[in-house]
């Protein structure tokens, strides 16, 4: 029996898992229209590579990864691109974001796919393929998987953890996936193990999912994979928490689990990886739990881009007196603003609320420093101190109290006797700090550029003066050659030295504003140049047209 380690705090919210585990995973029927956001992962959003009117096939790349931390986005079915425009997306802000809208042609034809020979492939090429195939963590953070599958040159990652804890109440998509597709998950883990050079594979599952544990244990036989039942304690499925629980290794603050030789993947990601490699199929669908106040709660294999409204319809629709939806779990999720927003790689659950299951939070009272939050905090923070400083916008102090170690799990808000929305204060403080940091960088950059410009203007003035002086001296030279005046020769030598020096200086300080541009900016400029060339041609054409 593996020795398990208990992290600090944690809470026991009501599980509500039973509501949605009654039926096997259902596949959503094909819809007439999909709205596929280009920002479905952490990092840079994908760049659209289709335009309205284009025909696409299922699995065709419609969004090209942009920058390093980015992955591809693919068409969920075959059809025609209706628009590439901002549409509502599942985000706490309720803002719209760039999406590719695809009208399905009903044929659901797929691009040609071929399995990848992962054992034979060069690891770097394999990772690039996964990047293009859109693989990102399906546990909720949607970090590009190809980066996590890179062990790096010097790092040895002896332990791979498959996270099947699913500690958030209500969500059961990982549970069902493990029950029904345990062998596939483990086959995906096999590939991960190969890519990372890992020796030990652990599967952590909370003990409130006996069926999943049984299925995984049965499938694990002979694979050298250990399935471990861990205590059901929220947030036991947090990356740092499950790492500590299973291995006793503490992920350093601000660091990654790989710093202690552990890599953690959600079970859903392992399954998606297998699909990508075995079937050569890009990430175009995921399992989503629909639960709460709906007619037929359950889990649905859902194409990315499926509007939430359609998914709710598949679950039989909302029951009367529903009071809105939550995207994600009740502890960390957010309220959905628009049912037209689509399912993305990060959406693991849609919960329909009603007044009884999700009552409005009681009116908050002042903090009485009772310390219940500190006892519940899995990051071992002092939430009430953080609250105090976040509330008064003393952002420096929030950082001395380690604001950025907060994982926003919501345990503190859950236990707070004063019902203070603590996590909201921390999120506010975090984004305020980020934005100020960003502004400061922008200001520093502007200052630097302004100062450089002043320097450049000064230099140009000098150069002009030198040119004039040179011209003058040349004239002088023409008149003085005959005289063979030693005085004139000396002056000439001096002048030449000065010019040489100025030229040297000029070479040393090259203007910075157009050279050494970062690639993306260079690309931007290039694109503009190209457009201008086109525009110029068009204009010329128009002119010749007019002349005729």
């Amino acid at each position, binding site marked *: 029996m593996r020795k398990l380690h208990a*992290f*600090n705090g944690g*809470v026991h*919210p*009501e599980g509500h898992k039973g509501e949605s585990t009654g039926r096997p995973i259902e596949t959503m029927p094909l819809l007439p229209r999909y709205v596929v956001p280009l920002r479905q992962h952490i990092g840079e959003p994908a760049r659209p590579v289709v335009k309205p009117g284009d025909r696409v096939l299922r699995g065709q790349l419609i969004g090209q990864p942009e920058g390093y931390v980015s992955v591809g986005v693919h068409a969920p079915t075959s059809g025609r691109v209706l628009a590439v425009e901002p549409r509502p997306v599942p985000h*706490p*802000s*309720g803002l719209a974001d760039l999406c590719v809208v695809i009208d399905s042609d009903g044929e659901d034809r797929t691009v040609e796919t071929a399995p990848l020979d992962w054992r034979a492939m060069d690891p770097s090429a394999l990772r690039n393929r996964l990047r293009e195939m859109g693989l990102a963590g399906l546990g909720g953070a949607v970090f590009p998987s190809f980066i996590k599958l890179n062990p790096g040159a010097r790092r040895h990652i002896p332990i791979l953890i498959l996270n099947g804890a699913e500690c958030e*109440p209500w969500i059961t998509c990982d549970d069902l996936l493990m029950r029904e597709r345990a062998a596939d998950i483990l086959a995906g883990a096999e590939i991960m193990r190969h890519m990372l050079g890992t020796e030990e594979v652990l599967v952590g599952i909370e003990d409130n999912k006996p069926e999943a544990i049984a299925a995984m244990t049965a499938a694990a036989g002979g694979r050298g994979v250990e399935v471990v039942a861990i205590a059901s304690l929220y947030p036991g499925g947090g990356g*740092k928490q499950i790492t500590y629980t299973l291995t006793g290794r*503490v992920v*350093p*603050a*601000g*660091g990654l689990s790989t710093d202690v030789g552990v890599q953690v993947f959600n079970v859903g990601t392992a399954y998606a990886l297998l699909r990508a490699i075995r079937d050569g199929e890009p990430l175009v669908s995921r399992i989503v739990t629909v639960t709460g106040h709906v007619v037929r709660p359950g889990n649905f294999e859902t194409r990315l881009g499926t509007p939430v409204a359609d998914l709710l319809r598949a679950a039989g629709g909302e029951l009367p007196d529903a009071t809105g939806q939550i995207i994600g779990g*009740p*502890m*960390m*999720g*957010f*309220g959905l603003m628009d049912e037209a927003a689509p399912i993305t790689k990060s959406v693991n659950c849609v919960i329909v*609320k009603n007044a009884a*299951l*999700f*009552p409005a*939070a*009681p*009116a908050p*009272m*002042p*903090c*009485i*420093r*009772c*310390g*219940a939050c*500190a006892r519940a905090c*899995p*990051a*071992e*923070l*002092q939430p*009430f*101190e953080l609250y105090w400083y976040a509330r008064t916008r003393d952002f420096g102090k929030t950082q001395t*109290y*380690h604001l950025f*170690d907060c994982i*926003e799990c*919501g345990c503190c*808000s*859950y*236990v*707070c*006797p*004063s*019902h203070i*929305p603590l*996590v*909201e204060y921390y*999120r506010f403080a975090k984004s305020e700090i980020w934005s100020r940091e960003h502004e400061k960088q922008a200001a520093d950059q502007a200052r630097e550029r302004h100062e450089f410009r002043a320097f450049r203007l000064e230099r140009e003035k000098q150069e002009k003066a030198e040119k004039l002086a040179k011209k003058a001296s040349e004239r002088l030279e023409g008149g003085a050659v005959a005289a063979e005046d030693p005085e004139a020769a000396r002056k000439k030598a001096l002048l030449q030295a000065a010019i040489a020096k100025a030229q040297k200086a000029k070479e040393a300080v090259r203007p910075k504003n157009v050279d050494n541009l970062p690639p993306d900016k260079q690309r931007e400029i290039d694109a503009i140049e190209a457009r201008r060339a086109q525009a110029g041609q068009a204009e010329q054409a128009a002119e010749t047209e007019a002349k005729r």
Partner: protein
Amino acid sequence: MTGSPHTVLAGNSVRLVMLKVLVALIPGIVAHAWFFGPGIWVSLLLCTLLGVAFEALALLMRGYPLKPFLSDGSTVVTAWLLALSMPTLAPWWLYAVGMLFAILVAKHLYGGLGQNLFNPAMIGFAVLLVSFPVYMTQWPAPVELASHTPDLIESFDLVFAGQGAVSPDAYTTATPLDLLRTQRLAGDEVGGIMAQPAFGVVGGTGHEMVVLMYLLGGLLLLNYRLITWHIPVAFLGTIAVTAGVLQFLDPTNHPDPLFHLTSGGAMLAAFFILTDPVSASATPRGKLIYAGLAGFLVVMIRNYGGYPDGVAFTVLIANMAVPFIDAYTQPRVFGHGRKEKGK
């Protein structure tokens, strides 16, 4: 936009916390009524009513809604703690002055619930102690030793109308701590003093039973997980150790540790007053330092200070040190500094 978590919360509330504290105080109150007469009911009732009235006044003046803050129970806890700390059967205005300072000055001038730097009840108590010292020495005599114990009606008369038919000497007396102090100043030895009937078995007749009930209530609070072991253990432990060392050095002038633990306000402070979360240290190490400081000061004031019992002052001094203690005792955060192991 609604923030997470969106769910039925843990069912905790300020009101519930305060209610549990009140429940935990009940054994002590019952013991008090049993061993010192029913006068305590009068002072509890009076302090509660005064507290609510002052709280309402302060909330109205500050523009806060009455309902959530009057019903949060914090005022009642303050009122009960003050009533239990004060001599019963004192004139009504004495309670009024105490509650006035507790609620209006110590609580609301500092910003109301959750903002007070000092324990409100102890502020009220300390103000009375320095302003009306005579009244604060007229403690009810234990039923066992009193020539007369006023009943409930008589208690009301005494509190609201002043002198009753009986002379105060019949029902009031000095506490064991008072006796000890005055007689030691007169040059008597501790052993002799403590042989008197007022001193009971360990901490004074009547007092020791009430203290035992406070201990019981304190264990209840621990069981409710409203307090952690740190403050009571550090406080009582420091008292015992300090008193033990002093007694070892000079037994003729210092009473034994057990007496210190079971007399005066020590036990009430250990579980109910020092543990008031708003004014107490909040970090585990901080709590040990905070309560240890208070425990040390209690024994020092009792043995060398100008007051027979130093609990109120030590609580206030310890409260004052809290921001400083907390700032320097922040616990290690998950993922931070494991260096203390190796080096």
